[in-house]
């Protein structure tokens, strides 16, 4: 006869409520694990989708995600000419926050060369960008429909396609536009600022008596062209030809003035170790604390439940029950509670993880590990109750 099951059947209300409570706690532990994995996935989302072997950025920076990096767009041609490089493509990145529907609307704008790579990895609705201007592809997370328009800088952009769960390392959904549009959005000043800038240049040149009026005019135009140029990018990504030596290519570009070539592996390290390390540690610590709390709660529940049953245990001992019967009753109850709580937690998190504001990635390995931990916690916690139960004397069953 399974005494644990029968006790649970009799006290099912209490048992279910306790399991739900514990299940919610385990659900939080699972979500923490999912958020932790989600942080990784988010951090590497764009980097992985780009499938670049090298990220060429501004010298002495860890750009383009972890630090600001600005390099001239035309360096792409020089990079493409390096032996071993198969293709090179410029990219620009910018976090943008606008008002939409009266609420702040934040996203990560990626500008890419329509003839290069680094654009949306997949189109799940609509189409990719075909025109050089004013079209955009947005990530699912932006919750925008095809044909919807959004004003960025001086122009309206129309959503022509939807891509998957692309996000920045900060968790903001990604939107893709052509490189030219992205550069304009990021680098182009407004008309007043351009006018003021030109007047400042003209005033300074007019103060130089050695310049003739045609020279002044010539310089005005060229300086303005330089200062108003938007041909700047945050990085140029490169893919190597099969068999090419990554380190050699990296060293070669590293010898150039003003540039740093970061391998994809290094970029992953920068994104994971540098950018999300503290968040990862925070989540890890929080998970440990929650697991300790779960262990304490399970121990208390089992101990209280054992205390409630001391007379029953004494009676069982008096009628000759072996220790294994009593140990089995307590241990099975503890394990059953753990398993049911785990199932409840898993059910809750499976139904809700898609609704979390940030990505929650439930990894089978993590869930299995947590299950084993829960079983270990339940087993160890039940020792408290078992120890108490084994000390009960059969004589305690006697008397009124």
């Amino acid at each position, binding site marked *: *006869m399974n005494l644990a099951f029968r006790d649970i059947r009799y006290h099912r209300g209490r048992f279910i409520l306790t399991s739900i409570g514990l299940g919610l706690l385990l659900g939080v532990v699972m979500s923490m694990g999912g958020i932790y994995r989600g942080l990784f996935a988010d951090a590497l989302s764009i980097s992985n989708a780009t499938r670049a072997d090298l990220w060429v950025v501004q010298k002495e920076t860890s750009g383009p995600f972890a630090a600001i990096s600005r390099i001239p767009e035309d360096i792409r041609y020089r990079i493409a000419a390096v032996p071993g490089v198969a293709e090179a493509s410029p990219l620009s990145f910018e976090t943008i926050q606008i008002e939409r529907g009266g609420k702040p609307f934040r996203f990560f704008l990626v500008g890419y060369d329509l003839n290069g790579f680094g654009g949306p990895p997949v189109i799940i609705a609509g189409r990719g960008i075909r025109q050089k201007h004013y079209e955009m592809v947005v990530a699912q997370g932006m919750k925008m429909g095809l044909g919807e328009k959004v004003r960025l800088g001086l122009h309206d952009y129309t959503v022509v396609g939807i891509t998957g769960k692309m996000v920045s390392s900060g968790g903001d959904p990604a939107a893709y536009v052509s490189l030219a549009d992205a550069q304009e959005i990021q680098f182009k000043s407004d008309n007043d600022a351009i006018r003021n800038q030109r007047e400042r240049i003209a005033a300074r040149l007019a103060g130089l008596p050695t310049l003739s009026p045609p020279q002044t005019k010539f310089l005005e135009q060229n300086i303005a062209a330089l200062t108003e140029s938007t041909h700047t990018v945050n990085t140029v990504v490169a893919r190597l030809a099969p068999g090419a030596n990554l380190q050699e290519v990296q060293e070669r570009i590293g010898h150039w003035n003003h540039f740093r070539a970061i391998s994809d592996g290094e970029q992953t390290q920068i994104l994971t170790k540098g950018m999300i390390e503290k968040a990862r540690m925070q989540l890890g610590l929080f998970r440990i604390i929650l697991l300790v709390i779960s262990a304490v709660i399970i121990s208390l529940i089992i101990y209280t439940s054992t205390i409630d049953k001391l007379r029953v245990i004494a009676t069982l001992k008096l*009628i000759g*029950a072996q220790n294994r019967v009593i140990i089995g009753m307590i241990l099975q109850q503890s394990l059953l509670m753990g398993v049911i709580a785990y199932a409840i937690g898993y059910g809750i998190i499976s139904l809700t993880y898609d609704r979390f504001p940030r990505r929650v990635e439930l990894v089978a390995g993590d869930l299995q590990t947590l299950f084993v931990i829960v079983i270990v916690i339940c087993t160890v916690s039940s020792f408290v109750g078992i120890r108490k139960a084994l000390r009960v004397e059969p004589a305690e069953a006697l*008397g*009124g």
Partner: protein
Amino acid sequence: MYAVEVERLSKIYGRGETAVTAIADASLQVKPGELVAILGPSGSGKTTLLTAIGLINEPTRGRVILDGTTIADDGWLPEIDLKRVRREKIGFIFQAHNLIPFLTALENVMVALEINDLTKREARARAVELLEALNLGHRLATYPSFLSGGESQRVAIARALANRPKVILADEPTAALDTENGKNVMALLKKLAVENRSAILVVTHDHRMVEGFDRIFDVRDGRIMGER
């Protein structure tokens, strides 16, 4: 052969000046099928004597022999598996019934049988037979909290009888019952003692409940003062 033999049994709590003698030099023999009362006021040592015979309380001195097997001789004999002896040879009936609250009447009897390694089917058949014999056939699936005091005590008796023990020890089995139910329980015990050839020792302080018992031992201050 006696079902129970107690020879010069003593139980002393503590040592030296603080020692308290709960039972002193108690001797008695009970034959199979006998219904015996141990009668005495509170604190007289009658429950201590019962627990020593029931292998719960280790005697300080003296011998306890159950069904021909020596269990204690100036303390438990190390080669004796007390739990096994309790399981196989002794049935207990308590003052407060001590039914397991989360088991039905049927399961309360079955648990004693399954602990003694009977299969579920065998245990069920025996438990049903016992409960029906005690007029509880209609209460098999009822939890103890829904049974009356008399019904609960009858379930407890069924559990005590389940393994056909040689000895049944009852500690104030009528204390929680009204007089009529108490007398019914005692009558039932007498009937069972005869039918099952079990020796039944009943500890009680209530003189009214021992009518019709085969023998009555009076206990005072830890000593058996006499036999009626």
